[in-house]
């Protein structure tokens, strides 16, 4: 049963791996890449693998793999605590995998006298297990308690931690119940005990009950010194070469002590066999899940390091560039390091579009590469437009993903797909047309929800313009008015005319005017206004309002 479960999970793992690798050539971040032949991309992927193995690049690759992949020196420098957590999980798990899970193939071969129940193996297994659990605890704590990681953490992140944690905990429990298991003792007895002398067997039972904490259903006399002595000599003959004292399994042994009051009940349930099954199945689930969840980063992230390190790849022919950029998208571990330093992250706390945050935005970029739904793309576009290109995300990314490059590529890609920033959308209609569109939008909003009515402050207050005498000083000093005339496309309305629209209460006609949208916010008008009317501030507010209207517009209406 377990054997077949393993085969099934292994087959899923292999096919998953192939599926993910094929996605690297199937999807494209940008339209230019989409035009390239898929066959050529597959060949390029293969060629590049080959070229790196046979050339001097191999040395760079080995160095990068060890330095960035295995030791993760980059994380150590920028985020020591996360490095400790990640290293604990990674190395604890890898060592358990190699020397415990694959002990029949590796440990036996490396250590001539290997037995899983001997020291130091029994002790180290517990050390590695607790290392993984500690790492998971730190990671979990960070995701639950730090502001930004808490906001971005998704089911997937917790499931990964939970699955790894369950594998380790089930392992500890399994070991604990094996220590106290009578069945385990009996089956070992029938396999390895040469003599079948009743007295020797009961002596051994007494010895193991006392020294190895096996809990027998029938009372065993552990106070008979003669019996224990005999038991010890039988133990030395038959068991000692493979069994170190269970105390060395410092976690499992103590767990076993906790359960000792109900041990006979647990033994009667054959709980050790049940846990063995659970422990194996969890491992198999983990294996099968690797290609489909965030744990795929154990493949894609090191690969991304290698792509970045390669000097061959930097030759940058469009085919390998297309492959590299899609691999980079897969290298994200959703750790959130980028979002923690993102310069516009606080803006998200007001606007509430998580696609402002790099860690979420990269998922949107991947969805776009896969051909995502327009609604997602629109949210992505709005989030991406907030980016100020400070590049902190790229500098802080432990997976070395060229994030800023992805945002810039996405920006032009989104425009190709028809998703323009508000300052471009506003040119699609005249101010008069916008006013009609937005008035109907407001009416619809009023019907459904009164609170949806868009608020404004200074521009709705008649006192703001009360003092305006239409002297046109604002227009005379406005550099936009003069510069637009100088290039032969005079602006639609002058600042003074916009003020007049507001004065007579037709603000809706002003929202989409070129004057409002081409204002450079130089504040010349406001500074020169003899009546101290906050003209530039009003323009800001009008743009705020128009932006809200644009973002409320449903997809397809634009």
């Amino acid at each position: 049963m377990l054997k077949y479960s393993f085969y099934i999970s292994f087959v899923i793992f292999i096919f998953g791996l192939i599926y993910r690798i094929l996605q690297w050539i199937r999807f494209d971040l940008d339209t230019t890449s989409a035009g390239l032949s898929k066959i050529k991309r597959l060949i390029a992927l293969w060629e590049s693998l080959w070229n790196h193995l046979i050339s001097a690049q191999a040395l760079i690759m080995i160095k990068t793999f060890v330095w960035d992949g295995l030791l993760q020196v980059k994380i150590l420098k920028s985020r020591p605590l996360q490095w400790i957590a990640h290293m604990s999980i990674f190395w604890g798990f890898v060592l358990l995998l190699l020397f415990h899970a694959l002990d029949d193939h590796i440990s036996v071969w490396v250590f001539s006298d290997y037995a899983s129940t001997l020291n130091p193996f029994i002790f180290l297994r517990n050390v590695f297990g607790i290392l993984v659990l500690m790492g998971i605890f730190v990671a979990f704590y960070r995701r639950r308690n730090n502001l930004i990681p808490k906001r971005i953490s998704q089911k997937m992140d917790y499931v990964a931690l939970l699955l790894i944690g369950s594998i380790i905990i089930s392992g500890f429990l399994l070991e604990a119940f094996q220590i106290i298991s009578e069945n385990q003792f009996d089956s070992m007895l029938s396999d390895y005990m040469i003599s079948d002398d009743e007295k020797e067997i009961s002596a051994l039972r007494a010895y193991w009950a006392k020294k190895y904490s096996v809990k027998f259903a029938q009372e065993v006399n552990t106070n008979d010194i003669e019996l224990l002595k005999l038991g010890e000599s039988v133990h030395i003959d038959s068991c000692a070469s493979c069994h170190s004292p269970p105390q060395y399994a410092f976690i499992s042994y103590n767990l076993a002590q906790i359960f000792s009051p109900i041990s006979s009940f647990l033994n009667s349930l054959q709980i050790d066999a049940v846990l063995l099954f659970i422990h194996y199945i969890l491992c198999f689930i983990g294996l099968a899940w690797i290609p489909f969840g965030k744990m795929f980063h154990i493949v894609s992230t090191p690969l991304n390091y290698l792509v970045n390190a390669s000097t061959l790849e930097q030759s940058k022919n469009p085919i390998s560039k297309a492959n590299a950029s899609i691999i980079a998208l897969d290298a994200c571990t959703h750790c959130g390091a980028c979002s923690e330093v993102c310069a516009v992250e606080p803006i998200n706390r007001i606007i509430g579009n998580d696609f402002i945050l790099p860690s979420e935005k990269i998922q949107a970029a991947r969805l776009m590469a896969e051909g995502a739904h327009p609604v997602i793309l629109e949210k992505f576009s709005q989030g991406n437009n907030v980016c100020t290109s400070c590049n902190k995300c790229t500098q802080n990314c432990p997976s070395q993903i060229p994030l800023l490059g992805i945002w810039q590529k996405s920006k032009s890609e989104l425009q190709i797909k028809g998703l323009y920033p508000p300052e471009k959308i506003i040119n699609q209609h005249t101010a008069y047309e916008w006013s009609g569109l937005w008035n109907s939008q407001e009416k619809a909003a009023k019907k459904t929800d009164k609170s949806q009515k868009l608020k404004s402050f200074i521009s709705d207050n008649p006192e703001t313009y009360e003092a305006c005498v239409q002297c046109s000083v604002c227009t005379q000093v406005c550099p936009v008015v003069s510069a637009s005339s100088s290039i032969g496309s005079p602006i639609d309305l002058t600042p003074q005319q916009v003020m007049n629209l507001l004065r007579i209460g037709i603000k809706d006609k002003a929202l989409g005017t070129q004057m409002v949208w081409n204002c450079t916010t130089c504040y010349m008008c406001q500074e020169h206004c003899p009546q101290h009317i906050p003209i530039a501030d009003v323009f800001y507010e009008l743009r705020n309002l128009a932006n809200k209207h644009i973002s409320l517009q449903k997809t397809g209406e634009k």
Partner: protein
Amino acid sequence: MQLKYSYFPGCKITGQFPKYDEATRFVMNALKVTLVDMPFNCCGYPIRHQNMEASVFSAARNFAIAEREHLDIMTPCKCCFGNLKHSLHLLKSDKTLLKHVNNLLQKEGLICSCTVEIKHLLTVLSHDIGLKNVKKQITHPLSSTQKIAASYGCHALRPADITNFDNPFEPTIFEDLIKITGAQTIFWTKRTECCGHPISEKNESLSKALLKAKISDAIQSDANLICTACTYCQIQYDEMGKDYLDGIPVISYSQLLGKAMGKNI
């Protein structure tokens, strides 16, 4: 007493104008001013068009971070300066807004009490350090044949009642700082006008027209160098000015002062 500021470089400087950052750190170090790097976020200027509340919150978080260390903010960018000043003004005059912002900041243990002061590189040099003290460090005075046009930058100058930078109509701070390097300054009418950067993505031709008018004025007024003190202005000259500049270099004030202190950056 030694001067110490929390340094607010602004988002664009690392990517698009790293020399300004380097030169600013160099001159401040030479003048024995300590600049402390902090985990600041965006000043809120770019989002102000779209959402004033987000802009103010973004600025307020920076205030809270600086206030936690009891330091004033110094920025070399005039757009950052202008927006930080504007947000601080709004927060000081609107208690409801301040309370709302602090409710949000509280979640990460921050609080904005509006005690921070916002300074621009030029005001720090001119008011806090003092022209005399800056002049003392000038070891390699610039040639007096150097005729420099000071390009002011709108968001520091205006609205003057909020920014308190200098006289918005007849400012002198920038020219005074240039003169102590030994170079000459020229008067040009468009020195306080907009460089066009704020609309460079919205309307490129108009943005270029604004810059062109400015550059032509500087050239006609006999300038052989244009000096900026704002990351955005410099980016605008660098990206859009090539066709109009006629070989006239455009550098930041930190680089100019650095040169007068014997270091070419």
